[in-house]
């Protein structure tokens, strides 16, 4: 993805012009085009959602909902004045859906990590790790949801900062600041985890 040619969709690697054609076909309710979009983008959306939520069912649900929203909005997107990159659009939708669900689950269970990386991130991360036996999951899960999204998009999905900022509806400066905090929080969490061994 990082090696996609300029003007190509980050997810599928196809030129944006192809995206416009696919979008136009989806707008006309062409099932083959819709399936093509699913094949091209569903795995990416699923990965983002899974790494953010840590729940396979939730991730599948988010990926499905994002793609269905593409179906819903295809007529408007195809008729819009600016060309739309399907991958970028879907990434933004999936990221926002994942953030929304994390916030919702935090409100419902009150068992999530604190909003910001406080002085005791290790404790939460350690508990998460012990419960899930998945250290990597615990590290990511220890981050606030927006920091989590920043790491998932840039580290795992290798999106350029500008793309990731767009996916999170942020300007580049704010995103870089968020990413800086996320990296720092991740390091601290990892150091505490290592120290606790």
């Amino acid at each position, binding site marked *: 993805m990082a090696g996609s040619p300029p003007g190509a969709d980050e997810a599928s690697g196809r030129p944006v012009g192809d995206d416009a054609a696919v979008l136009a076909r989806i707008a006309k309710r062409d099932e083959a085009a819709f399936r093509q979009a699913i094949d091209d983008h569903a795995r990416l959306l699923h990965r983002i959602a899974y790494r953010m939520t840590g729940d396979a069912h939730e991730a599948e649900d988010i990926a499905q909902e994002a793609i*269905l929203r593409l179906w819903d909005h295809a007529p408007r997107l195809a008729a819009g004045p600016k060309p739309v990159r399907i991958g970028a659009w879907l990434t933004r939708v999936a990221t926002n859906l994942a953030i929304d669900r994390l916030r919702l689950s935090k409100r419902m269970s009150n068992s999530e990590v604190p909003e910001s990386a406080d002085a005791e991130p290790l404790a939460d991360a350690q508990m998460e790790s012990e419960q899930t036996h998945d250290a990597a999951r615990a590290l990511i899960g220890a981050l606030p949801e927006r920091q989590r999204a920043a790491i998932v998009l840039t580290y795992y999905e290798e999106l350029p900062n500008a793309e990731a900022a767009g996916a999170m509806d942020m300007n580049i400066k704010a995103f870089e600041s968020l990413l800086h905090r996320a990296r720092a929080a991740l390091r601290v969490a*990892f150091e505490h985890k290592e120290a606790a061994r």
Partner: protein
Amino acid sequence: MSGERFDFDPALKKALGENTVPDLPEGFADRVVAATEGRAPPLPQQRTASSRWRTSRRLAIGLVSAGALASAAAATGVLEELGVDLPSPQEVWSSITGAQPAPAPSPSPPASTAPEPVPDARAPVVIEGPIDTPEELEEAFRRVDQRREERVDTRRSRVDQRIGERIDARRAQGLPAPTQEQEERLSDRLDTVRENADARRAARIEERREALREDVEAGGEITRENFIEADRTRLRNLSPEQRRDRLRQWRERRQERLRRLESEGANASGSDPLRKEDDANPPSNDPNGSSQDPQ
């Protein structure tokens, strides 16, 4: 996944790398495609303008549109489209006095098919020359009333018919149409509007007639010019917009008559009494106020 942009410790990178993702389950695409069936359309995008401004703007657009439509209706001759003949002063005077009207064709084809009201042959009073007796005046009023009643009935029945046709057409096209109850309410409202219009017109006419009666009782004579002068006074009380509308309608009628006269080979050199009269009295109509009252 690569860590070039992240100066993480290798151990941290390794730990992060263990965060693997399971594959998408089989049949995911089929499920998504199946889920598109019967999916509700998305809500419209949120508007960013404030609702108060939007409401005001709609009101302004509505008012301007209503004004434009009203002007357009007057300019394009909605009444003519309805087949309603707007008589010239000459025709009105002829109907009052019983004289034969000038041989001019009616301005619109539907009107030519409508039965032309004729003076009551059984009327005992014969109006000769100017109206100078109370009997002649009352007879003139009676004939005006008769003619007006016919015209109003024709106009209203055509309006009712047009409304019914529009409602039927909307039903046929599957568009929202008023229910029976709503139709009845609409009909009642229309009746109320018409009754109010009748009352206003009757009061206006009666006032004018009283003045004419006093003139006749005082030994005066009522000529066509008197009638027309009365209407000119009424015209002076119109707003500039109404006056412009009248003038536009008059010009259209005049053009239409000229075209008809020319097409029939009539002498268009100015000797035609109808043309002369129309030229002299541009926006004039029924001196008794019946010809252009809204129905």
